[in-house]
């Protein structure tokens, strides 16, 4: 009994000395972050089209798309993001990068929001805003279509095609 009382702490001390110090120095030292760690995402406004594909796949709806009159806003709410990286996989323009940022603590919910504001192009015929300007710009780069064709909204384009068909078959529109 007496021996045990002395031996038990001694055993503990030997284990403690053998293990050494394990405590991470964080926040005074580097955090324990590995290659595979995923943190908050970052949207590159120079590449983003405002297409909304990321909004559709985001499981917790951390990304949201808001249609205003002449603006389309992609809203990213870091607070709800689960850092899955599905948006980065989906983005057709490769605009999303997954960063290693995790020091996101905030005392205000607004501080956790990130907006990407897009200008919406207006239809050359009816003047109705219909698609983000950045999307049209990149579609024109990728496909052999002219600005004249791309700058018309789907409704007007449909009407124009119908009229062209009609004229071919002799209708008077």
């Amino acid at each position: 009994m007496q021996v045990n009382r002395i031996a038990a702490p001694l055993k503990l001390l030997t284990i403690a000395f053998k293990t050494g110090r394990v405590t991470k120095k964080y926040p005074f030292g580097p955090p324990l972050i590995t290659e595979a760690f995923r943190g908050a995402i970052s949207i590159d406004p120079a590449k983003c089209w405002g297409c909304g594909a990321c909004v559709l796949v985001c499981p917790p709806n951390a990304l949201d798309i808001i249609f205003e009159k002449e603006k389309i806003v992609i809203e990213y709410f870091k607070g709800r993001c689960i850092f899955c990286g599905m948006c980065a996989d989906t983005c057709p323009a490769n605009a999303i990068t997954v960063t290693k940022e995790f020091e996101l603590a905030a005392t205000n919910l607004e501080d956790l929001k990130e907006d990407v504001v897009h200008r919406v192009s207006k239809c050359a015929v009816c003047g109705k805003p219909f698609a983000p300007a950045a999307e049209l710009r990149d579609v024109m780069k990728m496909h052999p279509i002219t600005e004249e064709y791309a700058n018309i909204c789907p409704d007007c384009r449909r009407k124009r095609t119908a009229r062209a068909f009609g004229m071919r078959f002799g209708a008077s529109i």
Partner: protein
Amino acid sequence: MKLEEKLKSVRRSPWVFHLNSGSCNACDIEILDALTPYFDAERFGVKLVVSPRHADVVLFTGPVTREVLPKVIRALRAVPRPRVVAAIGSCAVGGGIWWDTYSTIGGFPKLQEILKRYGVEIDRVVYIPGCPARPEAIVYGLLVALGYVKQKVSKVVKTVES
């Protein structure tokens, strides 16, 4: 400024109470991780207590299920002022993947509206996102809550030029 003075007295050794409101347990494991010698939040005097009556800071996890809502309100009412809440994990911050399910109310911001109706004031909330929040993120969040470090994030608005 009165709150700052009050928080100063807490800052020496914040006692934390862990309040689970229906989380998936991953965030709770990370809290334990933050308290173990590996990340050692006890360096800053953080000590886990078992009663909300003894707590300075409430470590709040989970999206607040309907079942647990009355108990959560009772537990938070028992916390002495100044009440500091650290909402940990995307569930607690904004509802997480349960943001629109029928059985949860959708995180701490929604709960705060209900608390206001019951006259339970929360003096400071610090939101710590992550699913689960890393132990380092929890340590960092606690430091932000107590005013040791300045918060890093702020609202960003990026405008697309085209």
